[in-house]
């Protein structure tokens, strides 16, 4: 048995042949009673919660992972269609505000087992060593309580388990990938050409899409619908990379179960979770609780879990829950080429450059950005065209020209700022619970980076001989909101992701990130969850 399979057998538990879901495994799933005291109740089964559940189940822990959404079956539930994929997104009510409000929903919020990774593009880069100490080296952001080397072994594990395909990576701490780079679409070829002519290093990858068979997961078929949920089982999400192994080791996945409160006992420890299922409010006892609902719902859950001991919200003695939420500045610039491009073919994630990742004072800003191929499908592309102000017949003519355009996206490292936060709104959801309000405003450094990033994309497209460009200003990803730190006065969790305030409460999702780098966050979230699991297993969760 190979090394990866010994650690995580998920890819071998998926059926061979044309069926994408192991229905037997799900039917035979162990089921706990509410009155059973499980070892851990995990809230949210995405990048963080999925990995944690698998690791702990494999170590023999009794785990229930709750998810507010469905337990997806790619065959029956997902389609090769943009408009038909709206059910993949978290569309419960939320409010946005601030000077630069960030749209949620399809842009950054998932629901169901697999979380946002079900509809993420598939980019799985590592952070750079510099990301862990931006305050010390650049005077901005925050220093993590761990360094790159602490996370490196977990990066490698996750790259093997997803698995990640790409060329040898020269940036950050150089490393290679387990699967070789995928063939490119025309947009990827043009990106490489533009970079080559400008002397910018660009590489194919890193994408969490199988290139070759991996266990029983098949090869990618280059259909381009990665953001609509991969019907092929080629693109990674915890639904196929970690949940099957968790089930095989006795974990329960409890779908369509919305956790509304973490209950704190008189001893100040978490006693379990209150959740809604089938219209009934229920309570699951647990020896420990791990919250993994991502940067909007995790703070909301803690704030909605206020109790006598924590009148301002769970773990919020220092007014840090919900603060320092970050999004990356993710403008997309598309170029028009005389020849056909047809960017809808092949996965949108293809080529990246991290040549602009580190601080370069000539940009007038600290930290940096990455550039990647993005390849919007028609509805998303119409949003690009409309954002330039086109409508009516002009919009239609632009859209007819779709096959001539190649689109790039930038990921700018926007800084963690205390005023960018999740609070509770006045309005309530159908359970009567206050919904999240997400306030966001950029700082000058953010704006300068976005400008520099957009300019760099225009130059690359021009070097590849694009005759026109259109740009849409947008955001991507969410991290922060319950950041990790060395002490409770500056963060919500410690380096093992345990909350400072409640000894058996953990936060194992993207909300613990103190800074975000210019990298897509999924791999880092998974690596942090795997590391936290190792600490839990080593200590037996004792505190």
């Amino acid at each position, binding site marked *: 048995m190979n090394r990866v399979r010994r650690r995580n057998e998920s890819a071998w538990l998926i059926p061979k042949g044309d069926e994408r879901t192991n229905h037997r495994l799900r039917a035979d799933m162990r089921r706990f009673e509410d009155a059973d005291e499980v070892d851990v109740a995990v809230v949210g089964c995405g990048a963080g919660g999925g990995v944690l559940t698998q690791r702990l189940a494999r170590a023999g822990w009794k785990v229930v992972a709750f998810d507010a959404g469905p337990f997806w079956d790619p065959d029956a539930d997902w389609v090769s*269609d943009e408009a038909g994929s709206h059910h993949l997104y978290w569309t419960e009510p939320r409010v946005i505000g601030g000077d630069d409000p960030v749209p949620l*929903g399809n842009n950054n919020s998932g629901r169901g087992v697999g979380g946002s990774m079900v509809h993420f593009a598939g980019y799985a880069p590592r952070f750079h060593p510099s990301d862990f100490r931006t305050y010390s080296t650049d005077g901005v952001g925050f220093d993590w309580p761990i360094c790159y080397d602490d996370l490196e072994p977990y990066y490698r594990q996750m790259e093997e388990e997803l698995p990640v395909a790409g060329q040898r990576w020269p940036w950050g701490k150089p490393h290679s990938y387990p699967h070789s780079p995928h063939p490119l679409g025309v947009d990827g070829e043009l990106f490489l050409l533009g970079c080559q002519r400008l002397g910018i290093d660009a590489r194919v990858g890193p994408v969490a899409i199988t290139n070759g068979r991996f266990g029983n997961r098949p090869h990618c078929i280059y259909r381009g619908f990665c953001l609509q949920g991969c019907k092929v089982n080629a693109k990674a999400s915890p639904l196929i990379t970690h949940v099957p192994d968790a089930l095989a080791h006795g974990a329960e996945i409890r779908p369509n179960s919305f956790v509304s409160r973490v209950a704190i006992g008189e001893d100040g420890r978490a006693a379990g979770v209150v959740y809604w299922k089938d219209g009934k409010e229920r309570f699951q006892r647990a020896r420990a609780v791990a919250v993994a609902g991502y940067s909007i719902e995790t703070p909301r859950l803690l704030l909605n879990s206020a109790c006598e001991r924590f009148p301002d919200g769970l773990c919020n003695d220092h007014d840090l829950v919900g603060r320092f939420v970050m999004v990356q500045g993710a403008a997309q610039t598309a170029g028009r080429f005389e020849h056909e491009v*047809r960017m809808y073919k092949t996965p949108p994630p293809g080529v990246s450059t991290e040549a602009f990742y580190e601080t370069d004072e000539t940009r007038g800003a600290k930290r940096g950005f990455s550039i990647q191929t993005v390849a919007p499908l028609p509805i998303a592309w*119409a*949003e690009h065209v409309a954002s330039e102000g086109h409508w009516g*017949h*002009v919009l*239609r003519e*632009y859209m007819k020209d779709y096959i001539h355009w190649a689109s790039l996206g930038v990921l700018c490292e926007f800084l963690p700022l205390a005023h960018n936060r999740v609070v509770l709104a006045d309005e309530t959801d159908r359970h009567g619970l206050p919904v999240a309000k997400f306030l966001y405003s950029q700082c000058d450094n953010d704006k300068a980076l976005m400008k520099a990033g957009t300019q760099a994309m225009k130059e690359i497209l021009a070097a590849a001989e694009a005759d026109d460009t259109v740009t849409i200003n947008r955001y991507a990803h969410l991290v922060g909101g319950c950041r990790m730190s060395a002490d409770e006065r500056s963060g919500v969790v410690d380096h093992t992701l345990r909350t400072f305030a409640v000894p058996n409460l953990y936060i194992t999702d993207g909300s613990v990130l103190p800074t975000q780098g210019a990298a897509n966050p999924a791999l880092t979230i998974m690596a942090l969850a795997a590391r936290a699991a190792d600490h839990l297993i080593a200590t037996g969760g004792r505190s």
Partner: protein
Amino acid sequence: MSVDPDLAHPAGRPRYPGYNVLDQARHWDDVTKGVVLGRLGPPPPIRFFSPDEEAIVRPLVDRLLGMDEEPRVPVVEMLDAQLTERIGPGYRHDDMPDDWDAWKKSLKALDDESRHVYAAGFADLTPGQQRDILQKVQDTDGDWRGLPAAKLWTLWMRSVCQHFYAHPWAWNEIGFGGPAYPRGYKDHTLKSSREPWEVAEVDAFDPEPWAQRVEKAKRRQQ
């Protein structure tokens, strides 16, 4: 009044003559086929918009999408169904109502504006007059009749594009290959970018210079 610049639009000319993405439907998986082909069936009756609102939203959608003649993609019906079912985008701006209320409010505002400028309801204006009113909304900074103009414009465009470009007729118009499971794509390189069943375009042209002329002319007429 000068000549309506939109009259010269080339939108009526097909760019991919003979291309029909539905010819490929037999290669799509059943679930996708069900969802996509469902858009070709009879649309549900109007339930969300009142008759007065329907009379305003129909020309609004036609102008925003440049739909001048039959057969029309049933965008109004698709939008009405979405608003009836309260399917939202997953967020609301703190200075905007929910999408369903924003739509109703904006239709009333359009009609009020129209009566103020032309002494006639929006539904009774010529397409050119309707476009002039919409141009003013698009060019407004800040508040427009009680709604933040830029966010309202984004809501309108996001909503109508989401339905129009979900329809196979629109895919034919733009040469999009459509669903591709379980078959996938195999011609995706500079040397060979077109599947055997995809159609080469005719009369390709860069829309940018033409678009600039049209949009400048529209604003000059204001």
